[in-house]
């Protein structure tokens, strides 16, 4: 039981890190960004390429693939997202999904369709007798808490964060102060994408990397965003960890149902509290 809770927190941490960007883009720009899943897989594949093919140490490879995600997401923002502001949300869905398809296929082209393994970079477990805790998973949980605290400070204390929060509430009012809000949203977009890549990097050693991993995580992160509320930082965190726990605990009772359970929760939330988008 404790073991399952521990695993659930790990999944929750990764879901949280991956979902922030999606929640922010949604809250800030009213754009559903399917391309988010692509950046996530690029993070994981970047890690695979740098650490396995080039033989770099894990930390360097992880940083390298995060750095790779930044220009990539900037290009996506510039070429696709920026052209969709204020337009029918259907086209945003279609266009960003198209980016996801292109990314998935490019990955298949370069790395082949088969899953690739990445080994646990730490490889040590803390054994407490009743509970075995791989250190790598502990690091993930710790990192997700650090990011939560860091983002809270970022949005409360820094001027960039404050502008973004204000822009989330009333975009026009911020613009009338002479602030180019789109530029700040672009920063947030790149930040969120880099975090998605981090999610991919962190998840890769727990499982294998495969071309459709972005698609799978995307549906889960959407569930997180819908359960937690769009553009709601704290809600996203709570939803991510709760859903992570639900996945792990359901998986303990009946393995195959683990991810399906998330959608049941999401459906219930939607019925109780329909969102207006």
């Amino acid at each position, binding site marked *: 039981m404790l073991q399952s809770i521990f695993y659930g927190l790990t999944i929750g941490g990764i879901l949280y890190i991956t979902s922030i960007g999606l929640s922010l883009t949604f809250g800030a720009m009213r754009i559903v960004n399917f391309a988010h899943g692509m950046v996530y897989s690029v993070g994981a594949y970047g890690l695979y390429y740098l650490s396995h093919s080039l033989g770099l140490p894990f930390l360097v490879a992880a940083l390298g693939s995060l750095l790779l995600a930044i220009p990539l997401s900037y290009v996506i923002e510039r070429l696709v997202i920026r052209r969709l502001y204020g337009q029918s949300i259907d086209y945003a869905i279609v266009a960003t999904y198209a*980016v996801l398809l292109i990314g998935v296929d490019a990955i298949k082209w370069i790395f082949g369709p088969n899953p690739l393994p990445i080994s646990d970079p730490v490889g040590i477990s803390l054994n407490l007798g009743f509970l075995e805790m791989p250190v790598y998973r502990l690091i993930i949980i710790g990192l997700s808490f650090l990011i939560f605290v860091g983002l809270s400070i970022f949005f409360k204390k820094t001027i960039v964060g404050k502008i973004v929060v204000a822009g989330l509430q009333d975009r026009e009012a911020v613009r009338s102060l002479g602030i180019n809000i789109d530029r700040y949203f672009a920063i947030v977009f790149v930040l969120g994408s880099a975090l998605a890549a981090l999610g991919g990097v962190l998840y890769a050693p727990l499982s294998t990397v495969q071309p459709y991993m972005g698609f799978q995580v995307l*549906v889960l992160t959407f569930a997180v965003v819908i359960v937690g509320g769009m553009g709601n930082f704290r809600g996203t965190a709570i939803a991510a960890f709760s859903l992570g726990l639900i996945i792990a605990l359901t998986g303990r009772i009946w393995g*195959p*149902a683990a991810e399906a359970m998330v959608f049941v929760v999401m459906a219930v939330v939607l019925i109780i509290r*329909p969102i207006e*988008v």
Partner: protein
Amino acid sequence: MLKRIEQSPPLTLLVVAAAFFVYGYSTSLFKITDFIIFTIFVLGFDMAYGQMGKLSFGHMLYYGAGSYGAGLCAIHVYPDPFLAILAGMIFGAALGLILGPVLVKLKGAAFALSNLAFNQLGYFLVLVPFAPVTGGEDGISLSFNSYGFIDFSDFNFRFYFYLACLLGVVFLYQRFTRAPYGIFLRATKENEIRVRFLGYNTQVFKVVTFVISTTLSGLAGALNALNLQFTNTSLIDPTRSVEVIFAALMGGAGNVLGAVMGGMAFMTIRQYLADYLVRWEMFLGIALLFIAFKLRKGLYGVLAKG
């Protein structure tokens, strides 16, 4: 010219029938039955998207429900092809009735993603818990009774029967969109609050439209099960939902001819170009980007203007 055809229902039926006849006899009737099934599916999807303005990202769920409805009916009840088709439609309609009241309240992204989530759930249910009934990943193979010339294993008969189904759907679609009901739907799409202000219960109309959409998708799924003589999980795979969206957008949403053109064009690309396009998903992605930015009215929009 396209506009004039679209405005006259008998002419539309004639043009659609002629198009499939010419295409079928100049290539192969066997392949064109696939095209017809997919076109019915596009029309079903377009009922929700084009008429009601709700983009679903999980319409494969209703298609798959139709396939499995037909398949399970043939195995467990009676292997009559018409009963199977009816069962498929009932499955599609039932899912629409259960999920519709919740789903149609949602808008935009929430509607799209909730459909996707339900599709994932349905896929999982078919794949794992119901595997003893549905055959899991392997699926089930089917055989149907034949009565004289009514023989679903003969592709000539299938072609004519499916074409008749398509023409029936086209006819009904046009009747719906031309009736006050269709005008009402478009009004709701434009401004729902005003329509409610006039005293109409928009929720009921939206659920009805959604059920029509899922029933048509179920019909397409059932016809496909009869066509393939088997069902498996690829018929309910959520990642394939993008195909119907692509076809509907490419043809031009919101009218019959657009949906038919989209269905035919998509299937043509998949049948004949897919062999040369090694990177199928990349092609699909680039084409979707092009549609989203440059071709919003679809083929119909381009051709009707010229």
